[in-house]
């Protein structure tokens, strides 16, 4: 039995060593990356100056055409991330400010995301390689239930989120395989999908009375003298529970309701996402309403 226990001990030691070596190797690979996505781009950047920065989910990423802002002489980048919640928008802003970004205007898409203050694992996991290297990332995850596992168990973060930051993504990062995420100053245009009836049901969604990450963003903007433009973006007509947007307006009066800025189905790729034509129409309205002086 003694021999067996030593054998088990040896196996455990091998496993721990492998976990530590892999953790170091993966982290090193991700720390050197700057072009796979918006998070690593911000992490690896130094101080930037922007007239307009856009944050939010895919409803920001697909709806604000950065080029139209640029055409008006406004240096803009769309940092909207598909599948993200306000947890990630808040953290990305903190990361920018940690890198001394100077931002004049911050457009943040706040509508559906106000209904929860949970992290979106698919996007939040992309911050995890920086957990031991960035104080703001560490602080943001500190409140999470799995923080101790993520922080202290070597390689746990890469195992738990293997489809986001596992071997495959690590390999692509190492070989610097390009993505389209940073094209068009971050804006991702959508085309028209196959003919389908546009519809959506958001009746179960309720805005939280106090979304802590949105409140964080407000405080950060105030502290850094950033003009904050919280905006609700359009959704197709055939949406059940469309009064959700009114509920948001009631809970957060400062949020601008542009849900109705674009209506017809021809401007939508799916019910929650406008196509490129819709996005351009919508962005023109936003520029006209908030950046008139520049024009």
């Amino acid at each position, binding site marked *: *039995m003694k*021999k*067996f226990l030593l054998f088990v001990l040896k*196996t455990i030691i091998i496993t721990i060593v*492998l976990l530590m070596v*892999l953790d170091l190797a993966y982290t090193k690979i991700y720390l050197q990356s700057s072009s796979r996505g918006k998070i690593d781009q911000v992490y690896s950047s130094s101080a930037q100056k922007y007239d307009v920065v856009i944050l939010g989910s895919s409803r920001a990423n697909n709806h604000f055409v950065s080029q139209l802002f640029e055409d008006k002489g406004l240096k803009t980048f769309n940092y909207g991330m598909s599948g993200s919640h306000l947890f990630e928008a808040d953290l990305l802003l903190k990361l920018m400010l940690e890198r001394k970004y100077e931002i004049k205007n911050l457009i943040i898409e706040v509508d559906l995301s106000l209904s929860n203050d949970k992290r979106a694992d698919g996007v939040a996991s992309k911050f995890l390689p920086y957990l031991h290297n960035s104080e703001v990332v560490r602080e943001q995850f500190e409140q999470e239930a799995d923080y101790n596992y993520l922080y202290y168990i070597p390689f746990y973060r890469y195992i738990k989120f*293997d*489809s986001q930051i596992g*071997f495959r993504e690590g390999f692509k990062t190492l070989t610097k395989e390009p993505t389209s995420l940073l094209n068009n100053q971050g804006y991702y245009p959508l085309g028209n999908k196959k003919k389908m009836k546009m519809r959506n049901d958001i009746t179960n969604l309720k805005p939280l009375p106090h979304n802590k990450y949105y409140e964080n963003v407000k405080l950060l903007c105030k502290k850094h003298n950033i003009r904050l433009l919280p905006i609700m973006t359009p959704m197709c007509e055939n949406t059940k529970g469309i009064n959700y947007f009114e509920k948001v307006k009631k809970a957060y009066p400062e949020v601008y309701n542009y849900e109705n800025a674009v209506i017809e189905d021809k401007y939508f790729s799916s019910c929650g996402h406008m196509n490129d034509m819709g996005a351009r129409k919508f962005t023109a309205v936003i520029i006209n309403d908030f950046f008139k002086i520049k024009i």
Partner: protein
Amino acid sequence: MFFNSFAFAVFFPIVFILYWFVFNKNKSSQNLLLIIASYYFYSCWDFRFLFLLVFSTFLDYYTGIQIEKSQKETTRKFWFWLSIGVNLGFLGIFKYYNFFANSMSELLTSVGFQSSPFLLDVVLPVGISFYTFHGLSYVIDIYKKRIKAEYNFVDYSLFVSYFPLLVAGPIERATHLLPQVKVKRSFDFEKAKAGIYQFVWGLVKKVVIADTCATYANAIFDHYTSMNSLSLLLGAIYFAFQIYGDFSGYSDMALGMSKLFGIDLLKNFNYPYFSRDIAEFWRRWHISLSTWFKDYLYIPLGGSRGSKLQQVRNTFIIFVVSGFWHGANWTYLVWGFLNAVYFLPLLLLKRNRTNIENPVLSWNLESVRTIINILSTFLLSCVAWVFFRAKTVTDAVLYLKGIFTKGTFASQYLDNERYNFELLILVLAFVLVEWRYRTQVEPISGKFATLKLSVCLLAIIALGTYSDYKEFIYFQF
């Protein structure tokens, strides 16, 4: 609680330590601990079904004794058929009732009658097909006077409920397992080490091969109508490796951990994808089930004796019943039927026992033939797996048709945000490792064992699929 879960990683060492350090005085205390652990393990799925397991165990234990004790043939028959009837009755109610009710209803509707079947709202108890077959073989063997009834209830319960094999086999025989649980086990370092190696290799098969293949196979099968020919072909191959990695991986883990308790379980897989014909494939795939059906169905039906027509009938019965054992769906029946069709030429030409030894390759023409035979057997099994995996027979037929009609053999971006061909290197590497070590139980033991163990651990950690968690496929059977 799955073998590859965190809960099991806590459960198993506790049982192991208690087994060898606290309950090691005699075989009764060892068995008692294993029974308690097994019942706890089973109740982690749904404690209500524990009563079913205990009832089934008690029924077979009691009827076994009554069969042995009975002097009159009629009484023996009564107890025998009572056990068979109740066991198959449970299986029928939980697994097959809704299928038959629905099929009957569809049949009536197709001939113009209106019918709305009465369906049962029941969940299939995990492992019911496996522990029912344990009990059946035990009762049949006593009835046929091949074995003596077991009078120690704890020992018998352990034979039925032993947790490494409880939910997905291998399907044990009383003649093999009961003698082992009737003696005190003492610790054997070499056996335990071999157990760890086999468990680790099983884990590689499950999390590295099966679960990774599953993400690709699912992305292809679930959207097969929009897939091109290459994707459909690859989907079938990926599923073949998914189900092999999943089930043989589970079996390896079960056999490996059982060795740690000093108990040997029946071998369930023997590198089936290196088979040179379908008969050999079925001697190497899910061996414990194949031999169960051979001993308790095929041979009683007459086996390979009698006229050709009887042999053909017996072959079709055994394969179709085997398909139906897997699940109450026409797809499994077709899968079984198709395998019988594959088997038929070998039976008629009396070539079903030609490939008994392990395949060997060298630089000659015979090896070319061996490779062609292996590849064609694998392709035939892939075709059958499409029926096994598809939701309906129509889906399976359209899937197979698509391989020939969806024209383009090009890379395609899948729903899982990966390219269809990406996994081929991993699958190929796995095949080469299996080929190299096909005469061993697992590839780790032998020379450079520590290095090979480290590589396997590295693969499990770095290449395993964890976020998209997959249950073991055979748990549903």
